[in-house]
């Protein structure tokens, strides 16, 4: 069957890193990813099923991998060769339409008793992602045994599958996984009902996070940075009170929080640091610059939630120490405790949000697998090409019907 496969190949990895540094997404042409004729994955046991993807999204972490920019941290947590793709809406053999919750936790690895995190419902924090009946892999799309969404079919544990209601289109359903990340990030802020939140970045993650913030904290003030006009307009439409250019963040947060400013030079009116700042900052970029910005606009004892996948960064941590700022990660999802004390699965919350906020509008373009280089380049330059989410469309692949 047709699949995009990522093999361990150091020279190609280096070539991808070089190519990707010139043109984002260009690593697809020279790197370790190839369109191959792969075998259908074997099902590890009776709790697994074959899923035939309908739409399969391309996310920032996929692009980092393809351009050779992902951290070496993941090396022991994945197994090669793998088929990427974890934002999936697909069909089961019986025709049921499902979305994939891609984390490969203890349940899917048939580990009993499960780790503490899985017991607590924090699936994303599973401690045993390198153990159990399947090879290492933090998610579907990074494990050599399961296959991934960028193919005609892959294997998924039944606990990973969520049936999709008839009313939800494929375009909406494929947005549930990234939206779950945004829901988890928004709820991780622990923000007071009338607090202030700054969201850095208005790509897919930033936009779904803004939408989640507005949904769960209707009275908080949300400031978003957005590089491109369409991002600005979507950020405002999804609930941001203010959307500004990234280089305006310090002044804008100062205004929103009524802080005073501190100038590093004798130029009194410059805004280099704030005396106060935002109660919480959600960094959906994950670069040295964005984390540095986050540190400069978070109030003392405020919280930075890192959603965008960082790699090696170079940051000055003195403000973190001096202002007693919390820097926490927000990786994937699991279960969430809501303001009323109830507990819900993040994916269920995300499905509701995708529907109510009409997040299907964030899917900008789809490509067949055969045009994977175009798709990946489009995804990597989505912002300046006026796009948000790019996905592979497998609905018209002929092989699909032969399985």
């Amino acid at each position, binding site marked *: 069957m047709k699949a995009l496969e990522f093999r361990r190949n150091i020279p190609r990895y280096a070539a991808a890193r070089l190519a990707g540094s010139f043109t984002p997404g260009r690593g697809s042409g020279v790197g370790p990813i190839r369109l191959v004729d792969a075998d259908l994955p074997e099902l590890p046991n009776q709790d697994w099923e074959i899923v035939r993807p309908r739409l399969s999204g391309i996310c920032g972490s996929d692009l980092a991998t393809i351009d050779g920019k992902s951290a070496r941290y993941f090396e022991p947590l994945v197994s090669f060769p793998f088929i990427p793709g974890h934002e999936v809406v697909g069909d089961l053999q019986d025709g049921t339409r499902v979305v994939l919750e891609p984390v490969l936790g203890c349940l899917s690895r048939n580990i009993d008793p499960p780790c503490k995190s899985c017991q607590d419902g924090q699936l994303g924090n599973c401690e045993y992602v390198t153990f159990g009946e399947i090879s290492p892999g933090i998610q579907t799309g990074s494990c050599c045994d399961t296959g991934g969404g960028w193919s005609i079919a892959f294997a998924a544990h039944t606990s990973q599958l969520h049936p999709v209601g008839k009313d939800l289109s494929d375009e909406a359903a494929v947005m549930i996984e990234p939206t779950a990340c945004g829901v988890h990030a928004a709820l991780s802020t622990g923000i007071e009902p009338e607090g202030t939140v700054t969201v850095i970045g208005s790509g897919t993650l930033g936009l779904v996070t803004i939408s989640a913030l507005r949904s769960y904290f209707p009275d908080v003030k949300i400031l978003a940075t957005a590089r491109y006009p369409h991002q600005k307009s979507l950020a405002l439409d999804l609930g941001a009170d203010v959307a500004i250019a990234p280089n305006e963040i310090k*002044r804008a947060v100062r205004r929103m929080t009524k802080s005073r400013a501190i100038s590093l030079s004798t130029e009194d009116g410059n805004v280099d640091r704030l005396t106060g700042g935002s109660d919480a900052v959600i960094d959906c970029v994950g670069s040295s610059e964005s984390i540095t910005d986050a540190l400069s606009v978070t109030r003392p004892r405020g919280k930075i939630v890192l959603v965008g996948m960082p790699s090696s960064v170079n940051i000055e941590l003195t403000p973190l120490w001096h202002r007693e700022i919390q820097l926490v990660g927000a990786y994937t999802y699991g279960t969430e405790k809501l303001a009323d004390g109830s507990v819900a699965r993040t994916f269920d919350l995300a499905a509701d949000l995708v529907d109510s906020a009409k997040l299907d509008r964030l899917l900008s373009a789809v490509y067949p697998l055969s045009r994977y280089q175009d798709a990946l380049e489009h995804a990597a330059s989505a912002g300046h090409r006026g796009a948000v989410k790019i996905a592979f469309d497998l609905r018209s692949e002929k092989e699909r019907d032969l399985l």
Partner: protein
Amino acid sequence: MKNEKNLAPRPGFVLDVDRTSPPVLFHHGDTFKLEKLPAGRSRVIYPPEPLEGLRDPDSAIRHALENPIGDSEPLSALLRPDMKLTIAFDDISLPLPPMRRPDIRQRIIEAVLDLAAEAGVDDVHLIAALAIHRRMTEDELRHAVGDRVYDAFAPSGRLYNHDAEDPEGMVVLGETPHGEDVQFSRRAAESDLVVYVNINLVSMDGGHKSTATGLSGYTGLRHHHNVHTMRNSTSFMDQENSELHASNWRMGKVIRDAGVKIFQIETTVNNNTFGRSGPLAVLQKREWEWSARDRASFVAMQKGLDVMPSSARRQIFNSWEAPYEMTSVQAGEVEAVHKITTENVYKQQIVEVEGQTDILTMGLPYISPYNVNSVMNPILVMCLGLGYFFNMYRGKPLVREGGVVIMSHPTPWEFHSVHHPSYIDFFEQVLADTTDPIEIERKYEKQFAEDEWYIHLYRNSYAYHGVHPFYMWYWGSHALEHLGRVIIVGGDSSAVQRLGFQSASTLPDALEMASDVVGPQPTITHMKNPPIFLADVK
């Protein structure tokens, strides 16, 4: 030889452009352009030549102090040993550009202090009446009042900048019948006599505005520095038709009724902005009268400026001090004094113009009232063009309703962070949202006016008050309502777009874009300003 000081100065002039007319000099920030205007339908308004200055300004000042106008005793008769005397004076925004030493304020303040000393007055304070403008630096104060006065008063804290945000230093004297709060400097309010020293560069300056605005703060200013007032001031240079003027006059009456005694001293200067001779003299000559030497000096200047970085050009122009000469001085009761001052301003500046035009062009210079020793940011470009230049009329605006203004200025996306911190935020936040003055006033003014950081910088650094950029925008609100389109030639296109205007790279392009609004073969009028003139449009 024409234009020499000993010949009678010529009045203003309206040139009808024909095929033989030479290109017209346009100011373009800190550079210049020579532009050819379409023949047969263009005209250029030239300011009157500089009037003769007073031969002995110091004697004229002493004479004015002892021979007051209106219901006032001579200054010497108002002074007594046990009194509290406050001398307030215009700030850095006047005159433009700053004048050569000795500044008129120095001459007058020295004369007033001589009389005060003779009368044995000990309790004297000098206040730069800057309202919510930025504080003046020591150098700027020294330039205005002279070293002798500065050294005698500043070290002991008796010469200082007005602080409109000092809760202890400000007082509300009452309310006008229109419900306008009259906020005033407490020191001035509690003084036995306030002497106000004016330089009346344009007809809007002086009168009750000197104290009602200059010694006030946001509580008072908001009643007339607003969109409604500015749209009902047609123009604010024409006292008879200015709601700004009327509001200040109402406030002046409240000040007077509260028992504040004001001895008003007003002065006028001539149009000698760039000198009758010297490196910039060519800028105030009419192009068809340029000599070969003038042409050579202009070309050399232009070439030199072209190769300089903008910071160097700015430094050169900021160091220019105008050789203004005082043409009149009058003192005494506020309204009586101001009436004569206004006549003297008109004597220098009025140019009669027949009818309106479809397109008004203007070359904006490097300076406005709010960027002395600073940066002309995009908001100030708007204010200078649509606030000041557009409003330099009596009768009717120079450009017809629905017409087009074309301004020439580089309009860089650049700000002086010390002087204009709230301008940066206004540009980034407010103008990114809307350029509608009413909406801006409703949605954002309070936030900026009450921002603690801006207030801190206004009081302790050299920043314009947080609300000041709003007033700049309101200043242009009459023009924004009147015009069909505004085009900036040679500006930074992002900055121009943020202002809500259209950007053109050349004047011919701008004229073509304007014809979309006003139709083909439109009439064009160019304001050759500076030097300043006031169009009396019939």
